[in-house]
């Protein structure tokens, strides 16, 4: 690497070191105090973490189930329809998540399910659908048609072709979609507050509580660090399974 490239590298890398790595170290140092130890020793902390993971996992799986048929349909459309449908799927997603969550309250309140666990899961699935549909669509579109035809010619039912050919070949898309949904879901806190009230707190709500309401940054730092390590473990696993080039 020559000198010019090195100087090009140092500025952004320095920024990220200062505003990403140093803060992580600060969090870690903060997590060494007695309040943090007390929080991590409490069973309720781990129950909360477990429940947040469960809610996020359930929402991710539901999101996958809800998205797959739609992605399958879009991938089978003509180019014009495909672009239009993809555009329509992605469009809401460029609008503010908070606004979309607030809008959901209008629908969930008359249904009588606002402030329940079901409302939170429904809201999570609703908000992250495009994140799932898009990678699924990309990988379904890549499945060679002739493989599907071959499967049919050899006597497999459409159902069997779907499970034995399409699903295995779209595993990369399934994995990518699940990652893209699961990780942000873990840290979410405004949505559970809007749709679940005080009854369905997730880790994010507890972190918010520790930092902004009860002034217990030690406990908040510890909880954030745990969340960070867990998501890093998931992301690391995912990147191991995937080949990349360049930055993306």
């Amino acid at each position, binding site marked *: 690497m020559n000198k010019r490239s090195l100087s090009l590298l140092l500025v952004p890398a320095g920024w990220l070191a200062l505003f990403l790595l140093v803060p992580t170290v600060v969090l870690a140092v903060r997590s060494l105090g007695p309040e943090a130890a007390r929080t991590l020793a409490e069973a309720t902390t781990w129950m909360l973490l477990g429940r947040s993971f469960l809610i996020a996992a359930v929402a991710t799986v539901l999101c996958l189930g809800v998205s797959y048929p739609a992605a399958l349909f879009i991938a089978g459309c003509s180019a014009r329809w495909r672009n239009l449908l993809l555009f329509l799927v992605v469009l809401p997603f460029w609008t503010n998540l908070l606004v979309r969550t607030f809008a959901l309250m209008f*629908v969930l309140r008359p249904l009588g399910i606002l402030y329940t666990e079901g409302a939170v899961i429904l809201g999570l699935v609703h908000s992250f659908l495009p994140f799932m549909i898009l990678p699924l669509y990309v990988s379904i579109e890549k499945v060679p048609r002739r493989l599907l035809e071959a499967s049919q010619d050899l006597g497999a039912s459409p159902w069997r072709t779907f499970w034995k050919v399409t699903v295995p070949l779209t595993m990369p898309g399934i994995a990518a979609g699940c990652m893209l949904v699961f990780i942000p879901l873990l*840290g979410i806190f405004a949505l559970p507050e809007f749709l679940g009230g005080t009854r369905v707190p997730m880790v994010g709500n507890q972190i918010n509580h520790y930092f902004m309401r009860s002034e217990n940054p030690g406990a908040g730092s510890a909880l954030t660090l745990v969340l960070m390590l867990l998501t890093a473990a998931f992301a690391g696993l995912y990147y191991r399974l995937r080949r990349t080039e360049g930055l993306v």
Partner: protein
Amino acid sequence: MRRALGAYTGLILAALYAPIAVMVVYSFNASNSFRWTGFTLEWYRRAWENRDLRSALANTVVLALVSMTLATVLGTMAALAARPVFRGKKLYAALVSLPVMVPDIVLAVALLALFRALGVSLSLWTAALAHTTFNLSYVAVTVSARLQGMDRTAELAAQDLGATPWGAFWRVTFPAILPGVLSGALLAFTLSFDDFAVTYFTSGPGGATLPVMVYSMVRFGVTPEINAVSTVLLAASLGLIVASLRLSRVPVAGGGR
């Protein structure tokens, strides 16, 4: 079978848009309840006359502009630096894409802890540093995608013909990656404009943006102005995405905070 799938996809789309449509309609409802009693612009007028909301609007725009500018420069540098093969490149790539991967609350709280440890009081400027950090990654990824398909022969030819590396960059490489840089910049603006979590933790009392205002308005009791503010935010986001689609054929995929 195909028909059933089509109907299903239609239902999904309806479910995606219905709540938003209901909210927009209610923002024009004359009564302050769930019953429709007639059209009014009263809530928009009240929202506009609310000084906190107006300063939040200004904060939102300033924050998006500042972090967009910084992140576009830094992110483009980050992507260009990743072109040659070097030792530790994987680590570097992981560092650059980290803000995209971690939940935003983690980044927000870590920065909050840093600012508190340094004794920096929170303001719009601390929020701008925070936004630049996550936006840098998104710009780097966007520009890097553009760079991947490009071969370097033109740039090297320019240098062989006597251009300085700097001159070759501005006259050859930069024009070629400009669409990527522009879509990265627009993405950064949009992400910053829509961000709630990072701003909430890093902006302090004077630096509230519109999303932060929406959050506290919903928490402390729903007033009809929220519908109006939310509708405005919605329209602004849609305007931004339409602008970016027109400006360059941006892949719509891959963003969203």
